């Protein structure tokens, strides 16, 4: 009897708790707009700032929540989310080279604009995006699948103190017969590959500028994205030259510089020797760098940041981490345009499975608006995709890395936006890396990569 009483009390208590919590949880349960952004100061912090602004305006109905996800797992996360249809996130930051892999799962933004006529910000100014960025980041198969979010071109970081030292300048001129000079804002002539190589050689063994080991340049060549992007930069110089255009035809924006206009592998030694020449340029520069084959973007920035190397090729967005006050090279770094810039960068796109397409569009529009691009660059050094920010005189005077952005976009090489890109990246890393480790000659390695790429593209029905 006593037990029965005890049980009825417990049941009463549970019912009371449920009665109290259920209505309150229903009231509290707000719609959530989930945003997955690549984890970096510029990108995820910018998204967080805009999410706060968004929540002030629309927070009573829907709350924007940003999740920062590491570069290494972002693509995997996206693919899993898209294919299982779980709709974990409504908005994603998408590296443009992944668009071919995930493009089928992204919203055509034109559909949203048509469906919700009032959604478009009249001051958005689509024309403020440089055409190359709109075509590369925002367009796929003729559809608008995202808005340009972060511009990423490969740039050259260098030690201003070394390049400006009169003693070194004189020694360089004596040895190479021309001036040691790094192109600045306003210069009409940019760096050539020959100059870059000479500079790297000079600061490796032409002069003793530090105690202990010293390198002219720090280069990445680790398999994966670093090797794919870096070789694209070297090959792009040949691919986009008059000779290259004659041999390979115009660059198809979806297939990028690595393919001919009829989608054959352009660096294939069977077509021309330009691929080999580009690889030899890359290998020649590698002699003046800490072992590139073990270095990705971050680890190749370290020798420069710690003062071991005189130059470093990396993404423009690395400026804050390289030059922060704790860096040994703080106050000694300058940026210049590379002989043949290569385009990286990100768009923000909407998951086709989202339940909140309108709100997602409003969010990505705010994140990439003309007004906020300037603010985000100043606050978080988010590398801008808008010309109005890149060419802003006040900002250029304040931030010494900004000037390189607009000239870097003149004729940059681009990577393919095709579904099998991860396979191509893997095949290149696996085989081309052997040209650095000495397991294969450059010619044999490149031929093997070209054969493998042709097989992958053919098997996927892309040619």
């Amino acid at each position, binding site marked *: 009897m006593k037990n029965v009483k005890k049980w009825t009390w417990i049941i009463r208590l549970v019912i009371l708790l449920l009665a109290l919590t259920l209505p309150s949880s229903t009231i509290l349960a707000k719609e959530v707009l989930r945003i997955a952004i690549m984890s970096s100061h510029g990108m995820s912090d910018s998204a967080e700032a805009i999410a706060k602004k968004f929540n002030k305006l629309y927070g009573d109905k829907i709350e924007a929540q940003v999740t920062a996800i590491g570069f290494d797992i972002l693509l995997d996360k996206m693919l899993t989310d898209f294919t299982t249809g779980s709709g974990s996130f409504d908005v994603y930051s998408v590296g443009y080279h992944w668009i071919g892999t995930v493009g089928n799962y992204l919203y055509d933004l034109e559909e949203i604009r048509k469906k919700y006529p009032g959604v478009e910000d009249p001051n958005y100014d689509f024309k403020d995006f440089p055409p190359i960025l709109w075509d590369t980041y925002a367009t796929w198969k003729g559809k608008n699948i995202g808005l340009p979010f972060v511009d990423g071109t490969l740039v050259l970081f260098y030690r201003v103190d070394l390049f400006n030292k009169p003693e070194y300048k004189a020694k360089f001129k004596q040895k190479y017969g021309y001036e040691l000079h790094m192109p600045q804002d306003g210069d009409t002539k940019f760096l050539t590959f020959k100059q870059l190589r000479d500079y790297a050689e000079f600061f490796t063994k032409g002069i003793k500028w530090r105690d202990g080991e010293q390198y002219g340049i720090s280069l990445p060549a680790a*398999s994966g994205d670093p090797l794919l992007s870096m070789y694209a930069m070297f090959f792009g110089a040949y691919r986009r030259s008059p000779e290259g255009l004659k041999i390979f035809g115009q660059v198809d924006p979806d297939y990028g510089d690595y393919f001919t206009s009829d989608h054959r592998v352009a660096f294939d030694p069977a077509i021309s020797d330009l691929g080999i020449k580009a690889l030899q340029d890359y290998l020649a520069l590698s002699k003046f760098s800490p072992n590139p084959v073990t270095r990705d973007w971050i680890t190749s920035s370290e020798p420069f940041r710690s003062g071991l190397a005189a130059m470093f090729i990396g993404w423009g967005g690395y400026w804050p981490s390289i030059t922060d006050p704790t860096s040994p090279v703080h106050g000694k770094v300058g940026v210049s345009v590379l002989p043949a810039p290569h385009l990286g960068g990100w768009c923000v796109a909407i998951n086709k499975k989202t339940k909140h397409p309108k709100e997602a569009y409003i969010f990505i529009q705010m994140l990439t608006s003309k007004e906020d691009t300037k603010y985000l660059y100043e606050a978080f050094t988010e590398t801008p995709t808008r010309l109005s920010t890149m060419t802003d005189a006040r900002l250029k005077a304040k931030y010494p890395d900004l000037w390189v952005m607009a000239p870097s976009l003149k004729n940059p090489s681009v990577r393919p936006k095709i579904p099998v890109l991860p396979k191509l990246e893997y095949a290149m890393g696996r085989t081309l890396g052997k040209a*650095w480790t000495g397991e294969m000659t450059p010619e044999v390695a490149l031929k093997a990569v070209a054969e493998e790429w042709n097989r992958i593209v053919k098997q996927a029905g892309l040619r």
Partner: protein
Amino acid sequence: MSTYRVVPAGSVFDRFAKHIFILPGLGVLVALVIYPTYYLIRLALSNFDLTFMTKPVFIGLGNFIQILSDTYFWGALGNTLVMASIAVALEFVFGLGMALLLNEDLRGGRIIKSLLIVPMMIPPVVVGLNFKLIFDQFGPLNDLLQRLGVSCVDWLGNPLMAKVSVILADVWQWSSFMFIIFLAGLQAIPQYLYDSAKVDGASGWRTFRFITWPMLVPSATVALTFRVMDALKIFDVVYMVTSGGPSFSTEVLSLYIYRTGFRFGTLGYASAVAVIMLILLTAIIEVIIKETRLGKRLEWE
């Protein structure tokens, strides 16, 4: 006064009781082991490509036939077998050595034992990251070598040394596992066996050869089985230290499965590789158990 009803033997309840009691356990087994394995095999027999948004299409043994000519698969399999065998062999030797040494009453032995267990408790991702820094061209290991007047080693840039680096990281972390198992085995050996060997005038080697080792074989088999299973599935350390490089000289099967499944989006193919890995693991473990007659020994014990 409460009364209990005695269920007569052979009644319906008695006959079905054991089946009913087994049901929850069976349910868990089906949900967590049998169904996922069935689904894995089903995927392995299908063409399922995430990037092309295709639904799984049954293709029979198509993926397995493709694996036969996949040089990446064979490369990864070779690397896995080589690195796992060397790492486990070294862990075995170090673990046994340390256990023999610390089984004696040494000064500070308890502290050393506690310290030896620490590597095992560190997440493999952290171990990988640490070793990546240690083996860096400008890392502390090369710095030490330079101070000793030895030239630097290209740990991560040379295909052979990259393998060595991964093996060393694994050995550092998992030798302590072998050590614990061996130490437990050593402490279970009755002292009177050693006492009688002493009386008979047996040398240290003969005592080890005819008393310690035979008594340790069951422990060795258990340790070996667990470590082989684990080493063949190695992922985190390789991913962090070398990412399979340089030029994929340290690519292992689990990393290859991850790449084919979640990078290339070919889930069907990745599942087929996983099925092969499962068969391989089962076969290797079966051989170890058979060769060491573990089953018989446990039965005897």
